[in-house]
């Protein structure tokens, strides 16, 4: 009886043991078949880990860096940026400027969209006129509102006349959202997925990724070495870094600062960082202490920028004591030193403004972006030191936007970039309707006029003089108090060659350089 039970038990146990062994072997086999070490990458295919899933593509409108990345791949405008960040013709083979208000663009011959339809001068005219119409809500309006007329001279030639000179006009045409698209895409309801860029969308898998294939109709298709870009969405910064370090992907955007050392220190991985967006304190100037420029100036002098940089970005960036200016030898030293860290001066200014004992204020930040919250904590400490009792308000990003747009704050911490590097990006901080990331209720027509003079200037001396005047006013009226610029990093495997992280605000347009990128496995 006992033997019989034992035998049956053993017999019953055998298949289970076998099953468990089989499961373990299967797991190990699965692990061995490809694993996580980049062995599944095909030659000519770049596996890219993107920091967010792009929203429905709408050209003309700024929809964030992930969407911009896709736009740089599937679309092109008349102008683009080369691998060193220089402004160069894109769909235009050449651009002539017979006078400061006239631009004659000659398109490449035989241009087509990815749906096979021809791209002509009429498409250029229609696209730019659409973006220049304020009713269509384009972010490009700031740069295109100067357009007086657009004429399609022939199928391959377009003449654009401006109402006044603009030394930022060509740069606006290189913004990824200034894409030339088929007429059928020029409405609010059609996703702008048909373009004339180096790649076309082959497959979209919502929530997972998208596959982009080389577009042979691209004007410079012979230079494009990648056959395919396999994009996977990695919203979490750590997961994205892990994917690169483990070899699951070849390249990622937006390396979070806490991962700089880990990613940069990994053998076979390159970290490319460039100073990018800037952080600043904005004010509600409608009433209360911050309506007084002296108080705003006191805040600008109270900020310990090194501390803020360390707290939020592990010192990966630069303190910003003025405004971000383009890399232009003519403008070197202009606007870069407006305020220093000087708490004594800050307290003097507060006393002069009638607040020797300080006051209380709320500081709006967001809990969703840790770096903004950490920056706010640092600013809070600095302001406490000069007697301003600051209460932090950190809703999620959506709440932050709503409160910012409604002026429901005294002070707020923000981060931003210009869509162009030309100082004209500062105009939106001193004129126009209120929005969530500029000082609420603030306007200064004098600064706006000086910045506009700089934009219109046709010689270097006039340009420098205009900006010097603008920033003298800036220093004392303080539309915002700068804090720092943060490094923005892309990272990639050593197998990837030819990619460049473009400097300054253009870091978000670095996808343009994937035209010159190759991968050797």
């Amino acid at each position, binding site marked *: *009886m006992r033997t019989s*039970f034992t035998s049956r*038990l053993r017999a019953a146990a055998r298949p289970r043991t076998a099953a*468990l062994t089989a499961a373990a072997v299967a797991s190990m086999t*699965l*692990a061995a*078949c*490809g*694993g*996580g070490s980049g062995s599944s990458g095909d030659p000519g295919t770049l596996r890219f880990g993107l920091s967010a899933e*792009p*929203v*429905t593509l709408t050209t003309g*409108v*700024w929809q*964030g*860096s992930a*969407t911009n990345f896709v736009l740089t791949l599937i679309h092109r405008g008349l102008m683009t940026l080369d691998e060193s960040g220089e402004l160069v013709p894109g769909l235009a083979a050449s651009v002539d400027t017979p006078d400061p208000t006239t631009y004659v663009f000659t398109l490449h011959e035989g241009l087509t969209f990815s749906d096979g339809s021809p791209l002509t001068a009429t498409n250029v005219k229609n696209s730019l006129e659409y973006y220049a119409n*304020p009713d*269509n*809500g*384009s*972010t490009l309006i700031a740069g295109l509102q100067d357009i007086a007329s657009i004429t399609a001279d022939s199928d391959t030639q377009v003449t654009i006349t401006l109402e006044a000179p603009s030394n930022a006009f060509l740069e606006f045409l290189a913004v990824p959202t200034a894409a030339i698209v088929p007429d059928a895409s020029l409405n609010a*309801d059609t*996703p702008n997925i048909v373009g004339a860029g180096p790649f076309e969308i082959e497959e979209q*898998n*919502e*929530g*997972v990724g998208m596959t982009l294939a080389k577009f042979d109709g691209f004007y410079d298709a012979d230079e494009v070495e990648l056959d395919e870009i396999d994009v*996977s969405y*990695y*919203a*979490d910064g*750590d*997961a*994205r870094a*892990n*994917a690169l*370090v*483990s070899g*699951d992907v070849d390249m990622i955007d937006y390396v979070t600062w806490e991962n700089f050392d880990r990613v940069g220190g990994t053998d076979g991985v390159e970290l490319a960082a460039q100073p*990018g*967006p800037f952080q600043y304190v904005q004010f509600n100037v409608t009433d209360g202490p911050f309506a007084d420029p002296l108080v705003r100036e006191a805040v600008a002098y109270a900020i310990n920028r090194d501390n803020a940089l360390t707290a939020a970005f592990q010192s990966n960036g630069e303190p910003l004591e003025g405004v971000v200016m383009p890399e232009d030898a003519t403008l070197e030293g202009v606007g870069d030193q407006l305020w220093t860290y000087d708490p004594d001066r800050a307290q003097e200014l507060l006393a002069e403004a009638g607040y020797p004992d300080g006051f209380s204020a709320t500081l709006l930040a967001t809990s969703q972006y840790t770096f903004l919250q950490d920056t706010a904590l640092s600013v809070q400490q600095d302001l406490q030191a000069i007697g301003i009792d600051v209460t932090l308000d950190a809703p999620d*990003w*959506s*709440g932050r*936007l*709503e409160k910012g*747009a409604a002026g429901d704050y005294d002070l707020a911490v923000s*981060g931003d970039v*210009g*869509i162009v590097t030309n100082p004209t990006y500062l105009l*939106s901080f001193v004129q126009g*309707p209120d*929005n*969530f*990331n*500029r000082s609420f209720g603030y306007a200064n027509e004098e600064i706006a006029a000086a910045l506009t003079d700089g934009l219109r200037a046709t010689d270097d001396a006039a340009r420098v003089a205009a900006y010097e005047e603008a920033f003298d006013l800036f220093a004392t009226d303080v539309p915002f108090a700068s804090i720092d610029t943060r490094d923005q990093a892309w990272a990639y495997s050593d197998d990837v060659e030819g990619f460049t992280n473009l400097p300054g*605000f253009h870091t*978000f347009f670095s996808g343009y350089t994937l035209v010159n990128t190759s991968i050797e496995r």
Partner: protein
Amino acid sequence: MTTYVLRRIGVGVGLVLLVLTLIFLALHLVPGDPAMLLLSQGDGGSATPEAVARVRAQLGLDQPLLTQYWQFLSGALTGDLGESFRNGQAVSEAIGERLPRTLELVGLATLIAVVVGVPWGALAARKGGWFDSVTSVLTSIGVALPVFVFGSVLILVFSLELGLLPAGGFAEWGDDPNRHAQVLILPAIALAVGFASTVARMTRSAVLEMLHQDWVRTARSLGLSRRAVFRKYVLRNSLTPVVTTVGIGVGTLLGSTVLVEKVFNYPGLSSLLVEAVTARDYPVVQGVVITIAVLFVSINIIVDVLYGVLDPRVRR
């Protein structure tokens, strides 16, 4: 019985309608404008008021709240959950893609938890001594271990150090079955550890209780071997509470995969809900919550009906 079942279904439908209304109101009471969010994704996002107004109109957010509620309610009742604000994908399609992924992950985690937890707990109860003590310590750690910590450790060891398995991501079965299986292993293990520990502890205590029953002594006195009694009678009778624990655990896991999905970048239903809440993507939030509510209410109805079948007194 028919009246009882109909009454249960009626209550279920009422509950779903209540959830529909509550979720609609909650979403619209929480601060945040989806249109502004769509146009303000991080830096450089100072959209013009015209752009925001245009997107609001496009999304139907310029309509009075009652109109929006009626559109939402009538859509939901006819099975049309709308389209995502972010990417225009039909919500039912998004849920249809994400729900099976989460079910697959939870299914595998449950399988691991049961295959490991039941024998482990049974063995601990039967062997006692040091093995039982070690089991108690390990299962305590397993229950207490935060899933994101254990998940990160798994990634560190198996992906970053050994390079055996992907650090995360997803692949469709149809595109790459091998990778599809690979990306499931680590998140399933991460999810299963706590669950297996709970199952093991429950099995252990249930088995210990059974081992002290009179009928066990009777079976032994009749000449049955210790192993035979254990396998044929003790273990089988101990499994009732374990099955209940597993059932409850599966339900809990369905709603708690969000951390694992985040750590392993796994595009399941929980991460869809979190992303949608963050982006104020109303149709997606509403659709996912409705799905979860219907699932839970359905399970409750089935359980209530089963109680009714098992115990006629409940039907009254």
